[in-house]
């Protein structure tokens, strides 16, 4: 096909799965020279995964990657760089302790030799001047001293800089998130210039009008698949939002309609956007694109309502972790110990652990939420991810805390387990417990009585009752629709 032979990078039928989760389910994506491809989708759509495949960080389990018409068998990070593929990541990928010039040296391996400082300074300064004219950044500054916007500018300029291998395909993943309007404008203008000169760009953003006006072609992803692919002029704001949502089922009504709005307020918190309140027995969802401040709110709620110096007999809040490895399981311990750690106060007398009671309680909860293990004394890591997550739920629910904070706990959990846990949550809420639930999955958010939608660290919308639906949530998560 003529099409493939010209493409800078062509991914064909790529499949990637992490455990039970299919991150990419047969994605075909081609990027032509002189083209800007906009890539949109809600959480878990597979945007970051396809980016990793293109920049060589991830090898797809099925499917092929081709460049300039030839199949690339051993495609890795270095091969991608040699082909001129550059990437601006969401997280900071510069060394904060080095100066801008020194970071340029790290990024371009073949810059060495006497006088490299002058050369590196020239390369990065040229690039900064081209992308952000009048930027006012001194290239001898340490990256850690820069403001977040300046770091982002340097990172973008680094991707467009040329030290031998010219950039041909630049992937921009939420590049404007910390730039103000005029800087974002400069960057978008540069993208157009780069395209006009024959370069290619993959552009990911939650600000829809940027996507619409900068891209030539827009690819909409959902659940690891490409669900729509059209020329940019064939889309408008509402069309995009609709394409990102589910095509058929809008089976709302799962959430208890007309929530208990008269119940007493158990928690309120001032945030940068709308105020946050929670009532007894409510299930409250925190929605929006991942990383827009939901976890921070949960951590703040936990920090203000739990002590760090003295043990507490009656904890107010308890926490179910999403990142199990980082702040969830204790890897060296048995299932039983992992389960009981949060409720030891109730299982002890004068600091002494009552082993019998601990065991009895463990056995009780093992039955209640069906942890599939022959022996609660087995190590926690002997369990599957889903069952580990159940243990974490049991840990939180077995405390007497009236408020349960959940930090996207269902990431990578199989469907059966999810349904079981949903039932438990609804039962516990009916008994008067409050759940504050950050979730990146639309099905879960729809289970909530009330939902706060986050964007850029603020609460942008509060949805309740029937207003909790996919369309409203996506509309509030992306900028430029609400008006």
């Amino acid at each position, binding site marked *: 096909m003529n099409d493939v032979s010209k493409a800078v990078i062509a991914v064909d039928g790529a499949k990637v799965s992490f455990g039970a989760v299919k991150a990419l389910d047969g994605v075909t994506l081609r990027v032509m020279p002189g083209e800007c491809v906009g890539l949109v989708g809600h959480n878990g759509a597979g945007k970051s995964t396809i980016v990793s495949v293109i920049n060589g960080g991830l090898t797809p389990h099925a499917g092929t990657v081709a460049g300039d018409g030839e199949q690339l068998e051993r495609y890795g990070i270095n091969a991608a760089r040699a082909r001129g593929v550059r990437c601006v990541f969401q997280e900071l990928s510069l060394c904060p302790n080095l100066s801008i010039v020194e970071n340029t040296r790290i990024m371009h391996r073949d810059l060495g030799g006497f006088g490299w400082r002058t050369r590196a300074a020239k390369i990065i300064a040229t690039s900064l001047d081209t992308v952000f004219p009048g930027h006012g950044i001194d290239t001898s500054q340490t990256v850690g001293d820069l403001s977040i916007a300046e770091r982002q500018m340097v990172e973008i300029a680094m991707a467009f800089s040329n030290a031998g291998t010219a950039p041909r395909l630049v992937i921009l993943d939420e590049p404007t998130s910390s730039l103000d309007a005029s800087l974002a404008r400069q960057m978008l203008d540069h993208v157009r210039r780069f395209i006009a000169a024959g370069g290619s760009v993959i552009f990911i953003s939650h600000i829809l009008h940027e996507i619409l006006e900068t891209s030539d072609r827009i690819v909409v992803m959902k659940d690891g698949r490409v669900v729509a692919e059209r020329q940019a002029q064939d889309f408008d704001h509402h069309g995009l939002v609709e394409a990102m949502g589910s095509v058929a089922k809008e089976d709302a009504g799962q959430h208890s309609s007309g929530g208990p709005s008269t119940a007493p307020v158990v928690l309120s918190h001032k945030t940068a956007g709308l105020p946050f309140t929670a009532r007894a027995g409510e299930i409250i969802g925190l929605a929006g694109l991942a990383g827009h401040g939901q976890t921070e709110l949960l951590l703040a709620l936990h920090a203000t309502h739990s002590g760090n110096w003295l*043990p507490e007999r009656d904890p107010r809040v308890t926490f179910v*972790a999403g990142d199990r490895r980082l702040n969830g399981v204790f*890897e060296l311990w048995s299932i039983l110990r992992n389960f009981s*750690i949060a409720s030891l106060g109730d299982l*002890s007398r004068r600091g002494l*652990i009552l082993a019998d009671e601990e065991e009895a309680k463990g056995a009780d909860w093992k039955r209640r939420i069906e942890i599939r293990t022959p022996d609660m004394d087995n190590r926690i890591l002997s369990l599957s991810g889903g069952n580990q997550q159940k243990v974490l739920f049991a840990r939180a629910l077995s405390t007497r805390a009236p408020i349960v904070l959940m930090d996207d706990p269902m990431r990578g959990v199989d469907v059966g387990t999810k349904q079981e846990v949903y039932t438990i949550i609804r039962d516990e809420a009916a008994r008067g417990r409050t759940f504050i639930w950050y979730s990146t999955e639309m099905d879960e958010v729809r289970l909530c009585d009330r939902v706060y939608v986050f964007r850029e660290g603020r609460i942008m919308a509060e949805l309740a009752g029937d207003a909790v639906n996919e369309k409203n949530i996506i509309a509030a998560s992306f900028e430029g629709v609400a008006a």
Partner: protein
Amino acid sequence: MSPVLRLFGKPWIWSWLAAFVVWFLTVTVSLGGGTLGLSQAALTFAAFSIIVGIGQMFVITLGPGNIDLSVPATMTLAGTVALKLMNVENGMILPGVLVAIVIGLVVGLCNYSLIKALRIPPIIATLSVSFIVQSAAIWTNRGLRIKPPSLLADFTTSNTFGIPNVAIVALLISIFAWFLLEKTIYGRWISAIGQSMPAARMAGIPVDGTRLVTYLFCAVLASVAGYLLACFSGGAALNMGSEYLLMSIAVVVIGGTAVAGGDSNVPGIWGASLFMFLVVSMLNTYGLGAGIRLIMTGLIIISVIMLAGGRRAGMR
């Protein structure tokens, strides 16, 4: 799993095996001559590193980066001040113990307040505190060598039923530490913090309180060890603690405690401490000098950590 196999799964068994092998090799060379004497000497000298090592173990259990470098200075200061206060009078023995414990508490408090207030890693906080404590010890000591009260000197150098008294003290402390570690909430908490501080925090554990208590405990054990050591050796010397800086860390590592934190065991400290002393006497018996002994100690520490590190990586 058969009981024997399960025994070999314990992390502390290796240090015990090593200690026994070395003991056996020494005894065979001396043809059983000084078996009792050797065992008693081993128990006596090991007792001090056991007491210090248990404290260091609790701190290391708190996770990567946690270590108490003020141990030797605390030992010296506690020994010096207590002997000075007791001034060879048997009636002052109890106040002497109390003042040693208070010194431990103060040092521990300084350590953790610096860690917390200046937000510096424990290693640098305990290092700065140890400089000051060391100076305080030099200043109180002034080169005088005050003898311990006679009762105390007798107690620390004699045996009960053939077992050295200091070893009995170490045993009591070990049982207490084992009890804390295995049976109490506190033990669970430090193990949880050592495995993952954020996870411990999110599980509702009072992390700062627990860490403070642990640093206090370590410093108090160091001062008790210093007190006993000063009485045992007939007076406090300025360099009496210096050997115990590396020793306290070494017995923890050799004893099978996870250096990455979260997993510790008391029996291993005993095996490692006995081993460390017995290696010295074995090499002496074979006519080898201190140099070889040090090199062997170092190689053993490195091989232990490489084996342990490998095991951990294999689990992942």
